[in-house]
């Protein structure tokens, strides 16, 4: 049985919206269900036409699937966002400090804060790149920090995504759809714009160029159009106005990266790569891979190109390391973590394993190296057989698992077949780190578990997305968006 959840709009009361969101309650009351449904379908049709599709593993028709979009937006007050973003800045700075340290002096290990074996024995730690010094000292330029909420002021970090986090195109496209289909919401609330994200990302890329002086050449590197996130890759390249390249478009010569254009070779300074570490350079990582750019790591180690994110950042978002993040944050910032972790049992430890085995039906169990909701047990809703499957797996390979209590994830009103009803959500803001520091565009990706009572928000497991509105403390800020800019805001 899931404990009663906190609803972000209606609080725990049930029917009266919190004061800040009264206007949303009114909007929901005024807009008939059929009208909401019509708009939602219009948004999804537009996504399908744009080709915002994703692939589900093992699904043949995956190219035609879109992630369901929910028309009822989620809203954060300005105060909530300010608090969140302070925590995000602190966390991201700690992630970068940790990466500089573990690929450098390893003081945090020497000081006994994080066990050496957990870092150095981790396949995500790239020993071959030990001593690497990325340009301007930035390792994780783009982090997608997954947050969950259980109460008015209770936010927890569920996962740090510091490799190649995806989903930012939904943040932008969802907002576009809302502006077009529900403009009246932006009259009732003064919302911070998200359409600055591509500019902010481009600035981040430019800021870490290793060569000073001339205008740096930045590119987005995609595995190709068969990749499930290709739409996002092309969308980002397009909105930043930079080239979208495939590995075959790049060549390394004399430790310098070039892209092949109709006008000859052009030197590349910054690569926003959306290819996993294993596949970026067949000379260094997977030798049997035909993907990748031979010599890329040599060019990077020679300091001639910036890789965004740097190779080897996976050690910072590993689920085993995750459980040490509060200590890691404290170690580098000197302060307590502003955003707490979800309590985590490391099954590699005997007592934690025992506790997990004793409480399987209450816990969420995750593979340390799993993602996308695969290899995950949600105890309270799982069938007996599945619980036993996990019990056997845990006993066989305890070091591969962590367990967490089942959280009463917050809910947000969501359009369902039975009308508007509460559904559980999580939140992924995107944190940018350049040479001049951390920048967060106020917004993010809200994922919603569309099934009643479900806590699994992953798109591959029946999750959808919502627009996430961050209220501005500047009245009328919404007008900077689209045609609205010609009118006076009411804010």
């Amino acid at each position, binding site marked *: 049985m899931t404990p009663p959840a906190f609803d972000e709009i209606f609080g725990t009361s049930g029917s009266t919206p919190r004061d800040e969101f009264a206007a949303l309650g009114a909007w929901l009351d005024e807009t008939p269900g059929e009208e909401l449904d019509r708009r939602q379908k219009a948004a999804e049709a537009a996504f399908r036409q744009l*080709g915002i599709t994703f692939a589900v593993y093992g699904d043949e028709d995956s190219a035609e699937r879109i992630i369901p979009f929910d028309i009822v937006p989620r809203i954060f007050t300005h105060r909530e966002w300010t608090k969140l973003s302070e925590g995000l800045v602190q966390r991201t700075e700690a992630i970068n400090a940790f990466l500089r340290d573990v690929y450098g002096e390893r003081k945090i290990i020497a000081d006994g804060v994080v066990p050496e074996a957990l870092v150095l024995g981790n396949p995500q730690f790239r020993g071959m790149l030990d001593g690497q010094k990325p340009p301007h000292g930035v390792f994780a330029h783009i982090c997608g920090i997954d947050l969950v909420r259980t109460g008015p002021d209770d936010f927890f970090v569920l996962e740090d995504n510091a490799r190649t986090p995806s989903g930012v195109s939904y943040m932008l496209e969802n907002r576009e759809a809302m502006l077009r289909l529900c403009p009246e919401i932006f009259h009732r609330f003064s919302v911070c714009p998200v359409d600055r994200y591509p500019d902010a990302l481009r600035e981040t890329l430019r800021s870490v160029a290793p060569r000073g002086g001339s205008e740096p050449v930045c590119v987005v590197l995609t595995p*190709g*159009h068969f990749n499930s996130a290709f739409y996002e890759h092309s969308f980002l390249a397009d909105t930043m106005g930079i*080239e979208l390249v*495939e590995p075959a*478009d790049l060549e390394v010569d004399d430790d310098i990266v070039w892209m*092949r*254009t*109709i006008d*000859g070779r052009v030197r590349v300074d910054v690569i926003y790569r959306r290819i996993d570490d294993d596949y970026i350079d067949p000379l260094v990582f997977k030798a049997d891979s035909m993907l990748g750019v031979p010599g890329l790591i040599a060019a990077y180690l020679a300091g001639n190109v910036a890789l965004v994110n740097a190779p080897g950042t996976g050690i910072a978002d590993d689920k085993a390391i995750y459980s040490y993040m509060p200590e890691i944050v404290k170690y580098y910032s000197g302060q307590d973590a502003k955003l707490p972790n979800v309590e985590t049992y490391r099954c590699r430890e005997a007592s934690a394993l025992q506790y997990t085995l004793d409480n399987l039906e209450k816990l969420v169990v995750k593979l340390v190296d799993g993602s996308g909701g695969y290899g995950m047990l949600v105890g309270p809703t799982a069938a007996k057989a599945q619980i036993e499957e996990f019990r056997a797996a845990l006993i066989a390979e305890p070091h591969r698992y962590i367990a967490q209590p089942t959280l009463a994830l917050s809910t947000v009103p969501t359009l369902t077949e039975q009308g508007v009803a509460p559904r559980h959500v999580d939140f992924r803001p995107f944190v940018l780190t350049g040479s001049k520091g951390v920048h967060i565009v106020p917004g993010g990706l809200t994922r919603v578990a569309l099934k009643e009572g479900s806590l699994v928000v992953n798109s591959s497991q029946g999750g959808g997305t919502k627009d996430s509105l961050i209220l501005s403390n500047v009245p009328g800020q919404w007008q900077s968006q689209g045609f609205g800019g010609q009118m006076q805001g009411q804010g």
Partner: protein
Amino acid sequence: MLSRTAASLYWIGRYVERAEFTARLIEATLRLDALSARPAGKTAWESALLVVGAEAGFAATGAETGQREVSAFLSVAPDNPSSIRSCLDSARWNAKSVRTALTRDAWETINRAWLGLRNISDMGDSRATLAMIERVRAETRGFEGALGRMLRNEAYAFLGLGAAIERADNTARLIDVKYHLLLPEGEIVGGIIDRDQWTTILHTVSANTAYRWLYREELKPWLVADMLICRRELPRSLAGSALEVVGHLAFIGKLLSRQGEADRLARRRLDKLGNTSIDSVFARGLHEYLESFLIENAMIDRAIAAQFKFG
């Protein structure tokens, strides 16, 4: 622009043009078939296979040379690399990888044309075939329309360049086959079958009306040849295509402030065509002339690939 992007755009231009040409060829052959006595009907479909160089591929299927079989082979056979479907497959594959260089319009017409043929294996009788072909042509016309609305940038130039190179190739093949291989032994130039053949050719390059405008005479084979080879006013003529190739290359050259082998070859070909009279072509031998034109066209294609580093 990335070399790969330019190569993809160039090949989208070529494949869509090839698909459209094949569609017109089927349409015109259906016409010819309907006009002719039965034995000539078979000849009509043989000639269609010859024009697109698919006679060996078709023979390998073991099917009879009839309307239903040949039109299916030319339009939807997955094992025919130059069938309309294969062309649209390749065009769409390229288009997917360069989505951001294409307009949404252009992408959607390619995608729709591809979807239209996706699950079809039999073209049915001539009426059904005609209806199907009409749909493909509507989409490819839509593609031309979408190109017309594109920014006049490198992307536009590479798409157009591919289409013009392909068009030059297709028209030359068409004239060659129709003129030399089809005219039955002993048939006089200007006879009934001959006239039907020429009408078919004009139909294939949509130039029936153009012929009347340019010559104001009844159909005469050497005038048709003159129009299809020497008249720049006709976009599908060899001279018209050559002019377009030069234009697109010059446009790209200006953007990059540099020129190369492809520019030189293309300009030389256009100059030569400007000094060519149809009489001199016939004096030299039409077939020989067209053969060397095809070789020259292939050289320009290779020079383009080398100059813009398509490899």
